[in-house]
């Protein structure tokens, strides 16, 4: 990098501090002069959106925790008291509850981008695996949080999900009782779920630090999948990426605000406004929308143990993408066959999501089985084979060449001599 990448503070205090703890230099090299590919599109803003949402969730969550009571007899009413009596409590809760959903919107967009542009490939394997771990932690945190209002869906979702562990041969029953802290979901369950729901976000924060660290070692991928070669291929993070991220966070917040202020219960289930009742099972127990594809996979398999293995496998397999995908070309833009199979895969996941919200009967089960089969065939068979047989399109020599080709008038060839 050029001389400008060395941090030389003007402020005497910062000079003093820099010799003792070079934190200014760390921020400067990571978020100011950090070279970012010049051809990134808006799919690359979701990392910043996710960081922003994590902060939103922690801040609203900490304040909600000041007013919440983790007791099976009091939890529901304490959430209602937040909605009715705490100043702006309704805002805190609606931001936190819808914030979880929008956190998942952002993480799914982030994963889709990573899969489409092959961001998991060498040398970004560790970065990707950390990302899958983050996703797993988010899934756990979201589930634990959904239980806390102690409504009907909270209670029964907790019952259904914890019961999955009973499928473990031999020790399953003991594991479930250990998770519950009793012989059924009850007050001890609620207490430990609350404790863990408060703990996990800080573990997520720690893994996010590792994720960002790994990112800054290997650098960002880009839509061509060709590594930056010269300084012409990159722009400094600040102001370019900073402003682009800030603008798109604004767009994202507009969508978020639409839900928080105008349809705050759109993604919520009416049954969760009924206090938990262990003696009355709701007609349909449905998880939150962001778990539905995995819920559909679970129910598509007639055997309970195999269903649980498929459920866990469907997420864990994603961590092995760098090794399942044998192609050396990263971006789907240069892999015509992979692109088609991948877009079908995304459609299949959305289809599974729809089926997960439907009762497990008749045609819904058959459809879910076909889609589940494609999910695993794509990851375990199509991906490894494609890399061996697929004819890929020629890659551009560099990022700047592809940028120029795109902005050039039709028919013109690069390099664009004499262009205005």
């Amino acid at each position: 990098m050029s001389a400008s990448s060395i941090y030389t503070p003007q402020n005497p205090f910062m000079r003093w501090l820099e010799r003792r703890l070079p934190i200014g230099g760390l921020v400067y090299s990571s978020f100011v002069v950090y070279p970012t590919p010049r051809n990134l599109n808006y799919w690359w803003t979701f990392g910043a959106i996710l960081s922003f949402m994590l902060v939103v969730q922690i801040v609203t969550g900490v304040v909600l925790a000041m007013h919440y009571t983790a007791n099976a007899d009091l939890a529901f009413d304490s959430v209602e008291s937040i909605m009715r009596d705490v100043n702006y409590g309704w805002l805190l809760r609606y931001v936190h509850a819808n914030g979880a959903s929008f956190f998942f919107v952002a993480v799914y967009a982030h994963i889709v981008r990573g899969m489409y542009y092959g961001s998991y490939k060498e040398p970004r394997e560790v970065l990707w695996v950390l990302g899958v771990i983050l996703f797993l932690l988010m899934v756990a945190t979201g589930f634990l949080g959904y239980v806390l209002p102690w409504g009907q869906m909270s209670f029964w979702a907790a019952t259904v999900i914890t019961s999955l562990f009973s499928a473990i041969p031999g020790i399953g029953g003991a594991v479930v009782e250990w998770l519950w802290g009793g012989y059924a979901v009850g007050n001890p369950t609620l207490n430990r779920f609350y404790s863990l729901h408060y703990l996990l976000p800080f573990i997520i924060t720690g893994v996010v630090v590792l994720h960002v660290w790994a990112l800054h070692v290997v650098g960002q991928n880009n839509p061509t999948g060709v590594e930056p070669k010269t300084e012409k291929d990159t722009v400094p993070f600040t102001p370019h990426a900073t402003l682009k991220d800030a603008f798109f966070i604004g767009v994202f917040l507009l969508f978020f605000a639409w839900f928080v202020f105008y349809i705050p219960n759109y993604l919520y289930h009416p049954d969760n406004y009924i206090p938990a009742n262990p003696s009355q099972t709701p007609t349909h127990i449905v998880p939150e929308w962001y778990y539905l594809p995995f819920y559909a996979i679970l129910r598509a398999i007639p055997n309970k143990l195999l269903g649980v293995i498929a459920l866990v496998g469907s997420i864990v397999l994603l961590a092995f993408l760098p090794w399942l995908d044998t192609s050396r070309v990263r971006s789907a833009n240069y892999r015509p066959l992979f692109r088609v199979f991948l877009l079908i895969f995304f459609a299949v996941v959305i289809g599974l999501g729809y089926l997960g919200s439907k009762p497990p009967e008749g045609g819904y089960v058959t459809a879910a089985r076909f889609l589940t089969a494609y999910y695993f065939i794509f990851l375990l068979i199509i991906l490894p084979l494609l890399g061996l047989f697929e004819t890929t399109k020629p890659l551009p020599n560099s990022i700047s060449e592809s940028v120029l080709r795109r902005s050039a008038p039709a028919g013109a060839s690069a390099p664009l001599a004499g262009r205005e």
Partner: protein
Amino acid sequence: MNRSIVLAVTLAASLSALGMEAALAQEAAIPPPQHWSFSGPFGLYDPEQLQRGFKIYREVCSTCHSLKLLAFRDLTDRGGPGFTEAKAKAIAASFQVTDGPNKQGQMYQRPGRLADHFPPPFPNDQAARAALGGALPPDMSDLAKGRGYERGFPWFIFDAFTQYQEEGPDYIHAILTGYTAPPSGITVPPGASYNKYFPGHNLGMPRPLSDGQVKYTDGAPETVDQYGRDVTAFLAWASEPKLDQRKRLGFQVFVYLIVLTGLLYFTKKRVWRDVHHPAELTKPPASA
């Protein structure tokens, strides 16, 4: 007078919870969408309607249904029924609230105050079941949010754009106006009433409203349809009392976010101008 009649009717008609569940599979009719003053991005509650609805709750529903999450002070809140403080105090004082223990260690009854919550009609769930032949009337505080019906594809997608949030109120209004004679060949178990909008159709609650039952002083029609609409609006307010504050703040947030995002967009465009039209890249390479 009215109270005792309703209580007597409800007592006479006992609910068979088992019969209800067995019939759950039967399809219920889809509630027709109603016009609500509180729908849409600027829709707020109509205080006069909430006051009428409160009158119905007071005279009819409160015989069996509690409203325990609501306090009398809420009646004076902005965006709610808009009772004056004096009026709300008078309403509170007309309820008997259990307090105590006093210095003698005894619980005692006293007139309600603004800080008190609405007292339940029964001391506990078991007392309610015992009095109503096994039926437990749900608490009404969250009823308008805790009820609804399946919208189905593709309507649930449109709902996100049209801001349709009133499944609960539509369902409650449909139930209150949906008591009909059962179709021929259908037998209703004893203690249940046929309702075409209730899943399974056999509702433990007997028809609670009839034309002219509650006297209105503001000239609104005294019909079951109007009663149903008014008491549903009241229950919608009871379940979401901060709707007024939420929508007003929401509008301010939108104006702020649109301006901020617009400014960020133009700043971003200005900064990236040199990147999208790179002068050094459009020149012929020196080595060519």
